[in-house]
């Protein structure tokens, strides 16, 4: 029953992967024990150490130019659990570390325990949940085993759902509950698929599964179940209904985490499964379905975003649309692989799209939070005066928007360029149409927000609240990350391609 011994040996220096996963969870436990305002201090210490760990991991990946593999407790798969970090995982870990650090700087103003109080529920929960989100994302990126991935997904859901309802209002509690129910149903589908795979192939390890998998009905059933479950968690159209109320209702810092990072966890898993586990079932025909949902998400999400009256809902629907772009790469990769062409550039394009969306969307939500604090509302029709009051924030919002539209030199530009080239190479013009139409619609709503906020303020208007300069700079830094990401193409090596498996010979 058990497959033969794996040929994949652990690599030196890979024990850092366990540190990257465990550190945030240790932070959660210490924060819980020490309580009160210590939660924020613990979070800061963890973030500094965590960023250093992720940098060390990328350094060792770059020096060996091969995937890092660690066997937990020295037990090799199929019985043991392997942690595995290739170029894709390390890129994702880097961007998550950057966004988490920027969100933490921003949240210092909104979520510090008020003076005199020993403990406040909002800040205390926020800092611990921030670390929990980070730890679960890192686990998703390095996990080499589909059951560990299930546990990581559930951890991510348990950390994400309370973030939605941090302020405890009825409607955000409702949004959190709806999100939780969607996510739970999704993870049950995923789990069913994982059990079916174990029942047939007798292993849960991704590398071993990839070497044994055959195109047969049970594999298709498992692939369909797991993908459907993950799509519900990623909020791909038509399973996006939970996303706008959840992401628009949460506090700005929490929205940035949810929209920028949390949905990327389940997307990453779809990518992992389709590229590495199911290369035999990920036929161009099957991938067309995935991209068809993506294209509908782009068109419908953008059109609905244009009709929103409130800034945060506009950004949330823009997330629904941008998720669509993430799924356009699948038919391109499948078609390139089927015709034995290099699919590497398209995978890089998809990853760049994720990185630029994660940074841009986090910046946009945080900018919207600052605009809300200054104006006391976020009605798009009454944004006038906000550019005068918050020049840095509105500039950051527009730069992030330019990255979503895909203007050079932003990360979104390079990502869409690589995807468009892939679509040209495989003669799939219909996906090019969806991408270009999406870019136009995106530019329409970014432009509307820009024009409204540039209008002069009514006479005698004063800001409701002054926002701190460092918050504005945190937003600007993230927006710049997204806008200048296009220069990543100048890097001498393609980090994404290091240690990729599953690509056909």
């Amino acid at each position, binding site marked *: *029953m058990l497959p033969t011994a794996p040929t994949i040996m652990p690599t030196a220096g890979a024990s850092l992967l366990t540190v990257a996963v465990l550190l945030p969870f240790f932070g959660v436990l210490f924060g819980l024990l020490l309580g009160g305002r210590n939660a924020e201090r613990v979070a800061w210490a963890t973030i500094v150490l965590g960023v250093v760990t992720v940098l060390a991991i990328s350094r060792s990946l770059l020096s060996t130019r091969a995937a890092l593999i660690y066997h937990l407790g020295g037990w090799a798969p199929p*019985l043991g659990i392997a942690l595995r970090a290739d170029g894709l995982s390390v890129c994702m870990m880097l961007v998550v570390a950057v966004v988490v650090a920027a969100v933490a700087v921003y949240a210092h103003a909104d979520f510090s325990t008020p003076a005199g109080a020993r403990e406040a529920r909002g800040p205390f929960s926020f800092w611990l949940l921030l670390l929990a989100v980070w730890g679960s994302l890192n686990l998703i990126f390095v996990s080499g085993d589909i*059951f560990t991935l*299930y*546990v990581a997904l*559930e951890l991510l*859901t*348990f950390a994400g*759902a*309370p973030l939605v*309802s941090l302020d*405890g*209002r*009825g*409607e955000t*509690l*409702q949004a*959190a*509950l*709806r999100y*939780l*129910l969607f996510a*739970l*149903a999704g993870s*049950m589908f995923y*789990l*069913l698929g994982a*059990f*079916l795979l*174990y*029942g047939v192939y*007798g292993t*849960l390890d991704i590398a071993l599964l990839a070497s044994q998998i055959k195109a047969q009905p049970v594999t298709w059933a498992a692939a369909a179940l797991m993908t459907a479950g993950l799509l519900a968690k990623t909020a791909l159209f038509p399973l996006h209904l939970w996303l*706008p*109320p959840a992401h628009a209702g949460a506090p700005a810092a929490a929205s940035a985490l949810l929209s920028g990072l949390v949905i990327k966890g389940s997307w990453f898993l779809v990518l992992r499964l389709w590229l590495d586990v199911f290369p035999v079932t990920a036929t161009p025909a099957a991938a067309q379905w995935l991209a068809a949902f993506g294209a509908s998400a782009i068109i419908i999400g953008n059109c609905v975003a244009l*009709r*929103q*009256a*409130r800034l945060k*809902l506009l950004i949330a629907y823009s997330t629904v649309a941008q998720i669509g772009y993430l799924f356009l790469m699948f038919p391109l990769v499948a078609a390139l692989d089927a015709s034995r062409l290099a699919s590497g550039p398209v995978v890089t394009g998809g990853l760049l799209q994720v990185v630029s969306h994660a940074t841009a969307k986090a910046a946009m939500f945080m900018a919207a939070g600052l605009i809300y604090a200054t104006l006391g509302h976020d009605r798009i029709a009454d944004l006038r005066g906000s550019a005068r009051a918050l020049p840095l924030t509105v500039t950051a919002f527009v730069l992030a928007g330019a990255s979503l539209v895909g203007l050079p030199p932003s990360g979104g530009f390079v990502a869409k360029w690589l995807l468009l080239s892939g679509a040209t190479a495989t003669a799939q013009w219909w996906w090019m149409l969806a991408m270009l139409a999406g870019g136009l619609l995106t530019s329409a709503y970014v432009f509307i927000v820009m024009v409204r906020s540039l209008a002069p303020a009514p006479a005698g208007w004063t800001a409701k609240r002054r926002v701190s300069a460092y918050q504005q700079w945190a937003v600007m830094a993230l927006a710049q990350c997204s806008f200048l990401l296009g220069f990543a193409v100048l890097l001498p090596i393609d980090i994404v391609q290091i240690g990729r498996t599953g690509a056909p010979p």
Partner: protein
Amino acid sequence: MTTTTIFGFCAAVLVGLGLYGLIVNPQPLRKLLAFNLMGNGVFLICAVIARRGAAAGMGGDPVPQALLITAIVVAFAASALAVALMLRLSEETGACSLSSTRGEGD
């Protein structure tokens, strides 16, 4: 028809009933119960797989059994979190429903 086949069919029925309940029932508590029903179906499939994999003098393959325990604990924690959210929701609004009282986009 062997025992494992019968249990396999039972599991399929449980998953189907649970999924139907999850989609059709509007009340969150019923949705949660339906989720648990569906979960039990999935766990039963896992148990069937463990039983089918019996070898080397053991009554079943131990790996799925270990997975099963973990999955049950995770599903229990999920249910507890959902119930806690529902309690807070009914404290805040006096009702526990998912239908929003306000129009979308306002």
